[in-house]
């Protein structure tokens, strides 16, 4: 996510310079094209040198943008050896989460469904269409591996504030690395049309301290 933010800042900086330059050219042209101040406009048709310049320069700029962009694209695929693996499975129309790192061979993993809280059941201060009954709890400042898949049709697991979006495809286990830099609650929504209630299956990630996470896992293990 930090890589995405940094690339965005770098590109926007140069983009603003280019925008100011282009707008200045356009404004200047319109201003000097006044029918009284400039009754006989120039009729310049060719200008080989300038044409080459204004073709090659934008190409060079694009190449310069492409270099860090590709570096980021490939680095997003790398998964640093994680400490936690969580499976997010899309259903019609809810997400289910499985934490299987803590199960013995025949024991069930920690698994629960995450349904949206309907409007009528919202409490004061809760966000409409975004809150869920069981949040996905993760430790902050820990490398996580998220495995996204679906049980029926295509879904997509997206949490914009974490820079995460990954299609949930039945029969496919898409792996994405996630690292949350602070404790907090992060919201997202299903991002692939999946039927009537596609808009009503949100995602809530709650990043907590390591101690809180361990106590949450212990509680969940006792419930199995």
């Amino acid at each position, binding site marked *: 996510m930090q890589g995405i933010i940094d690339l965005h800042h770098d590109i926007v900086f140069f983009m603003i310079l280019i925008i100011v330059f282009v707008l200045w050219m356009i404004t200047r042209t319109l201003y000097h094209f006044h029918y009284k101040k400039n009754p006989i406009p120039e009729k310049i048709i060719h200008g080989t040198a300038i044409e080459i310049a204004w073709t090659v320069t934008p190409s060079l700029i694009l190449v310069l943008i492409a270099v860090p962009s590709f570096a980021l694209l490939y680095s997003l695929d790398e998964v640093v*050896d994680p*400490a936690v693996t969580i499976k997010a*499975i899309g259903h019609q129309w809810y997400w289910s989460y499985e934490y299987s*790192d803590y*199960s013995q061979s*025949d024991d069930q993993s920690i698994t629960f469904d995450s349904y949206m809280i309907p409007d009528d059941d919202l409490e004061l201060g809760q966000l409409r269409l975004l809150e869920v009954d069981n949040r996905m709890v993760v430790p902050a400042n820990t490398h996580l591996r998220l495995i996204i898949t679906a049980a029926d049709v295509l879904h997509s697991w997206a949490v914009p504030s974490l820079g995460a979006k990954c299609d949930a495809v039945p029969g*496919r*286990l898409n792996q994405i690395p996630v690292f949350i830099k602070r404790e907090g609650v992060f919201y997202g929504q299903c991002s692939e049309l999946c039927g009537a209630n596609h808009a009503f299956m949100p995602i809530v990630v709650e990043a907590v301290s390591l101690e809180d996470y361990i106590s949450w896992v212990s509680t969940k293990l006792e419930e199995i």
Partner: protein
Amino acid sequence: MSIRVIEALSGESTQEATNEAGPADSQAAKDMEGDGAATPTAAADDHSSPEMGEVTLRTAPQDARFPTANQARRCYVAYNEASSLYHKCINEKGKGHGDCKPHMRAFRSICPDEWIEKWQELREEGRWFGRF
């Protein structure tokens, strides 16, 4: 209630498994051991108190044989490898031996429960298409 979770994830099975499984698994085992020194495991043990139970933060490491985003193949291969190791163990030690259980755990972090249950049903029906 004190909860002690014993992990034996991919690559980190018993010594005989490491010897028999071939270069890929032993490489993964080495990775696992290398990670054991530096992972949040230590931090987790520091933070977890005896009253809460002992939960170790460890999971399957990266498998270099499957560098892509789609880990479906890895899940299937890990399940089959675990099955073969489990059967070897059963053949050597006899059925019901407690030591064989860790082998069946290596794939749990990667494979969805639904897939494992489906394969389990196929086994029970006699329709399992894997080798073991």
